[in-house]
């Protein structure tokens, strides 16, 4: 449980009055925060505009934890949107990425190239048939 503010736009601020964080994970894109929160929506003049509850799941590129349970989030919080590109375009991107980053995992291709998982799996299957790439099982540590 904690308190904090999230800037959601230039006009409004969400003030979290209670936060139940289920997950905080760090990855290459930033911090992945998931949980449920009670909030007050305030106008720019800090008058109460609305109250509510939301389930939050997002990746935040910039995160600063000031004290335990209290956090602030920058307003440019971004969600990774996975794109559905035409197969040929996706194939070109995936092949180039593998050439540049040998040993990339399937999930790296999905997240780094921001491609829909179904597209990536289809592309990998086609590239494998065309003998342009090979997939190896990840070795045990």
């Amino acid at each position: 449980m904690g308190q904090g503010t999230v800037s959601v736009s230039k006009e409004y601020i969400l003030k979290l009055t209670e936060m139940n964080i289920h997950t905080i994970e760090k990855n290459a894109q930033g911090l992945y925060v998931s949980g449920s929160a009670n909030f007050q929506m305030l106008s720019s003049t800090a008058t109460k505009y609305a109250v509510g509850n939301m389930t939050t799941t997002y990746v935040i590129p910039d995160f600063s934890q000031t004290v335990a349970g209290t956090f602030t989030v920058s307003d440019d919080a971004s969600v990774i949107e996975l794109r559905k590109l035409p197969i040929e375009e996706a194939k070109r991107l995936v092949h180039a990425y593998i050439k540049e980053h040998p040993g990339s995992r399937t999930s790296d291709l999905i997240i780094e190239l921001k491609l829909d998982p179904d597209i990536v799996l289809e592309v990998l299957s086609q590239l494998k048939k065309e003998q342009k790439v090979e997939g190896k099982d990840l070795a045990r540590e």
Partner: protein
Amino acid sequence: MPENKREILPEEGTKVLFLSASAFARKIYVRKNPIAFSSSHRGQFATIDDGYLIIDQAWYSK
């Protein structure tokens, strides 16, 4: 029937073993406490709702 020929829908209660997999899910709850699988093998536990797992491979150009 799965829309994609690669999709599988295991029975509930099925255990799937993998060396590396990625989860895409609506909700992922990770428990902080380490789990002791055996005397020398520790790991973590996560509950995943409404999503899917992709078994990862390492990819190389030929």
